[in-house]
C-alpha cells in the first residue's frame, strides 16, 4: 500500500527534524513530560507529522501504557486556552495540560529578525511557465502583536496563481521552514505523483530541500494549495494560497464589476500569545483547533470599496483547521454560482454561504446602496454549560459602497439566474448510477482512550443531543486536552470493517463509484466532517435519502452529524489518492484512507459507465 522505502526514509528525516526542533525549543517544566515526549517520538516516529505516512501500525488505539493521559504536573498553571464568556473551566480539568511536548514555528529565532509578511501578490502564468514557491518563516503582526509564522514567498496568503484552463505549470517548491513539508494542489485533478502526499506520492521535502511539481489544470474554477504535512501547524500558521483557473469561454460566468478572492481563516490566541501546538501530534483532537480571531486573507479586518450598484464576484475558500463559516454581506442580495470543481447546474439565490474547511464557493453579490456592508459570520453557538443556543455574530470586514454608480450596470445580469446546460450535459451520463446500490459504505466514528474522567462524564450526557454542525468550540478546555494519542477519528469500511489506512480500495479508471458516507451520531463525540477526495471529482447526489436538486462537482463534501450522504465519484484519474477529513486535527488523528484508481482495472469492483 505504501512505499516502504519512502516511508522509512521519511521517518528518519522526521525524527531528525524533530530532534533539531526540540533542541531549539524551551523544554517543558516537568521532566515526566519531557521523557514522555522523547519516548513518544522514538516509538511513533513523529506520529501525526505526516498524515500520509502515519498509517495503521503507529495508530492502533486502545487501552494500554502507550497512551498518556493529560498531565497534572503543573496544577497551578494558568489555563492557556480562553474559554467562552460565561463558560467556566470544569473543575475536573483545572490544572491539566495535554500530554506531550509543544511546538511553535521559529523556536530560537528572534521574531524581529524575520521578514514581515507581505500581502498576497497575483502571479499570472501561462502554459509551460515556472514558479518558484518557497515556504519560509515570516513575521506576522496581528492586532499589534508580532508572531513567527509561515508564508509562501514571504506572502500570506501565498501568491494568487492565475492560469488558463488546461495549462500546465512547473512549481519549484523550496522548503525553508523548520518542519518537513510538501505542497498539495487541492481539488486539481493532476498527475498522481504531483499530489503532494508524503509517504504516498512522494517523500516529504526535508528542511532545506526542494521538490518540483508539474501541475496541470483540467478544470476551471478556484482551487488552493497547502502542505500535506501537519496541516494543523503548517496550514494554520499561514501556508495556503489560491489558484484561479480561467475558462476559455468568456461567458463562463456572468459579467461583474469586480472580483475578490477571499481566504477565510481563524487563529487561536490567548491575549498576546499563540496557543502552542502538540509536537508529537495534534492537540484539540476532538473538535479541531477553532480560532478566536477571524481572518480574511490573513488579516483580522477585511475591507473593500466598490461603486454603488456594483456586482462583485467573491471566490471564497475556507482554509481554517476546523471552523465552518456561515457568511453574508450585510443583507446584500447574493447568488451562488459555483463550488469546488464546477459551476452549479443552476445559479441560486442564497441568504448566506455555508463553507466547511477546504470547500470553495463562488458567489456574486450586488451592493446597490451607498454605505457600509458588513461581512459577517453568523452562527448558532451552543452554551453547553447553560444548555442553550445563542446567536454569535463576528464581523470579518466591511465593504464600503461609494455614491458613484458602477459602470457598466450589471443589475440585469445579476438578477438573471443562469442555467448552466453544459454542466447538466456533463452530468447526464452519470445519472443512471444515481439510484443503484452503493458500491462502498463508510461509517464515520471515533475511538478515545485515556481522556480525563471529567471529559468522559460530560460527553456522556452532552451528546444526548448532537448538533448537525458544531459552529464554535463550546468546550475548548476539553478539546485542548485531547490529543491524537487519545483520540482516533475513524473511516470504517462497512463491508470489511477495515479502518483508515487499512482500507485499500481499488477501482477501475473510468468507473463511477457510488460511496455512501454515514456519520454515526452515537459515537463518543459526534461531529461534522468535511470529507475530501484527492485527484477526482464527485457529485453529492443525495442526503438522507433526498436527491440533490442542483448538482455541482465537488472535491470536499460536508457530512453533518447523523447524516447519510451519497456521493458519486468520477474515478477518472489513475493513481493512489487520499480520502480524508479536512479538519486538520481529525486528519492528524487518523481519519484518512487511500483509494487506488487502477488504469488496468485491477480488482475493480465497481460498475463502469
Amino acid at each position: 500500500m505504501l512505499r516502504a522505502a519512502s516511508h522509512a526514509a521519511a521517518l528518519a528525516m522526521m525524527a531528525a527534524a524533530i530532534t533539531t526542533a526540540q533542541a531549539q525549543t524551551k523544554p517543558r517544566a516537568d521532566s515526566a513530560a519531557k521523557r514522555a515526549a522523547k519516548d513518544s517520538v522514538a516509538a511513533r516516529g513523529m506520529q501525526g507529522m505526516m498524515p500520509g505516512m502515519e498509517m495503521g501500525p503507529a495508530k492502533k488505539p486502545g487501552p494500554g501504557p502507550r497512551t498518556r493521559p493529560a498531565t497534572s504536573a503543573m496544577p497551578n498553571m494558568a489555563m492557556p486556552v480562553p474559554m467562552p464568556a460565561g463558560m467556566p473551566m470544569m473543575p475536573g480539568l483545572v490544572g491539566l495540560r495535554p500530554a506531550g511536548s509543544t511546538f511553535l514555528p521559529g523556536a530560537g529565532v528572534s521574531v524581529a529578525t524575520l521578514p514581515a509578511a507581505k500581502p498576497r501578490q497575483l502571479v499570472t502564468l501561462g502554459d509551460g511557465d515556472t514558479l518558484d514557491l518557497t515556504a519560509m518563516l515570516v513575521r506576522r503582526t496581528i492586532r499589534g502583536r508580532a508572531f513567527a509564522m509561515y508564508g509562501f514567498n514571504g506572502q500570506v496568503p501565498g501568491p494568487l496563481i492565475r492560469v488558463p484552463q488546461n495549462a500546465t505549470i512547473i512549481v519549484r517548491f523550496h522548503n525553508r521552514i523548520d518542519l518537513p513539508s510538501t505542497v498539495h494542489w487541492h481539488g486539481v485533478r493532476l498527475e498522481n505523483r504531483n499530489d503532494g502526499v508524503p509517504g504516498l506520492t512522494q517523500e516529504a521535502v526535508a528542511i532545506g530541500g526542494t521538490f518540483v511539481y508539474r501541475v496541470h489544470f483540467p478544470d476551471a474554477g478556484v482551487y488552493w494549495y497547502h502542505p500535506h504535512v501537519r496541516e494543523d501547524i503548517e496550514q494554520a500558521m499561514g501556508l495556503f494560497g489560491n489558484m484561479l483557473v480561467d475558462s476559455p469561454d468568456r461567458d463562463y460566468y456572468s459579467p461583474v464589476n469586480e472580483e475578490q478572492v477571499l481566504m477565510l481563516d481563524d487563529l487561536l490566541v490567548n491575549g498576546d500569545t499563540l496557543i502552542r501546538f502538540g509536537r508529537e501530534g495534534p492537540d484539540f483532537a476532538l473538535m479541531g483547533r477553532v480560532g478566536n480571531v477571524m481572518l480574511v486573507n490573513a488579516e483580522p479586518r477585511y475591507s473593500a470599496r466598490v461603486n454603488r450598484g456594483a456586482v462583485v464576484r467573491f471566490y471564497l475558500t475556507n482554509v481554517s483547521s476546523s471552523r465552518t463559516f456561515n457568511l453574508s454581506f450585510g443583507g446584500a442580495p447574493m447568488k451562488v454560482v459555483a463550488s469546488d470543481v464546477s459551476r452549479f447546474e443552476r445559479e441560486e439565490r442564497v441568504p448566506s454561504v455555508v463553507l466547511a474547511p477546504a470547500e470553495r464557493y463562488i458567489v456574486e453579490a450586488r451592493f446597490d446602496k451607498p454605505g457600509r456592508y458588513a461581512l459577517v459570520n453568523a452562527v448558532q453557538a451552543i452554551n453547553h454549560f447553560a444548555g442553550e443556543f445563542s446567536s454569535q455574530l463576528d464581523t470579518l470586514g466591511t465593504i464600503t459602497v461609494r455614491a458613484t454608480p458602477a459602470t457598466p450596470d450589471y443589475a440585469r445580469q445579476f438578477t438573471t439566474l443562469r442555467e448552466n446546460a453544459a454542466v447538466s450535459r456533463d452530468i447526464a451520463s452519470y445519472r443512471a448510477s444515481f439510484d443503484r446500490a452503493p458500491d462502498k459504505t463508510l461509517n464515520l466514528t471515533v475511538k478515545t482512550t485515556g481522556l480525563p474522567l471529567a471529559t468522559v462524564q460530560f460527553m456522556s450526557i452532552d451528546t444526548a443531543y448532537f448538533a448537525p454542525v458544531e459552529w464554535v468550540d463550546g468546550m475548548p478546555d476539553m478539546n485542548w486536552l485531547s490529543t491524537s494519542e487519545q483520540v482516533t477519528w475513524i473511516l470504517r469500511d462497512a463491508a470489511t470493517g477495515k479502518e483508515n489506512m487499512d482500507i485499500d480500495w481499488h477501482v477501475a479508471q473510468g468507473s463511477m463509484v457510488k460511496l455512501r458516507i454515514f456519520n454515526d451520531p452515537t459515537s463518543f463525540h459526534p461531529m461534522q466532517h468535511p470529507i475530501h477526495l484527492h485527484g477526482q471529482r464527485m457529485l453529492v447526489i443525495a442526503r438522507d435519502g433526498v436527491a440533490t436538486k442542483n448538482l455541482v462537482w465537488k472535491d470536499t463534501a460536508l457530512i453533518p452529524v447523523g447524516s447519510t450522504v451519497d456521493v458519486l465519484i468520477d474515478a477518472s484519474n489513475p493513481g493512489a489518492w487520499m480520502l480524508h477529513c479536512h479538519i486538520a486535527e481529525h486528519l492528524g488523528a487518523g481519519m484518512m484512507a487511500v483509494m487506488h484508481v487502477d488504469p488496468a482495472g485491477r480488482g475493480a469492483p465497481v460498475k463502469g459507465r
Partner: protein
Amino acid sequence: MPSAAAAQTGPYDIHLLSTPSAPQSAGEARLQFASSPFGIAVAADGRAIYDVRITASGLPSPSTVGAYSAFVAWAVTTDLKEWVRLGSVTNGTNVVGSLQMNKFLLVITAEASASVAMHAGPTMLHGTSPSGWLQSFLTHPLFRGISQ
C-alpha cells in the same frame, strides 16, 4: 451500532406522544434540512432550516373531539411565547413546511379550520425537538460550586 442502512430512522426524528383527547393516535416527525446548494440549509443568522414531515396515525375525525374540522401542526418555542403554524395534518404523511427554530415543541391541535392563524383547540399529539435534550449542567457535580 447504527449504520447507513438504517435510514428508515432519521437523525432528527421526533416521537409524537398522544394525549387523552386522542389516545389512539400516534406519530413521528422528521426534520430534514431544506434544499440548499450547501448541503445543509441555514438562515443568515445561522439557524438551521428544516423541512418538517409528520407521519400520523389513529387521529379521529376532528369533529369527534368538538367543533373542529382540521388538525394543525405548530412549532412552539420552549417558553411557549411563539407559535408558528406549520400546516394541516391528516393521517398519513404530511410535509408541513419549513422551520427555523433551535429548541421547540411540536404540537398538533384540533382547530375550527385548517387555515387558522392562532391555536385554540385541544392538543392531539406533541413532541420535543431533539435539541430539547440540551439541558443545563448547572447542578451537575461536574460544575458544582461554579457560578455563572
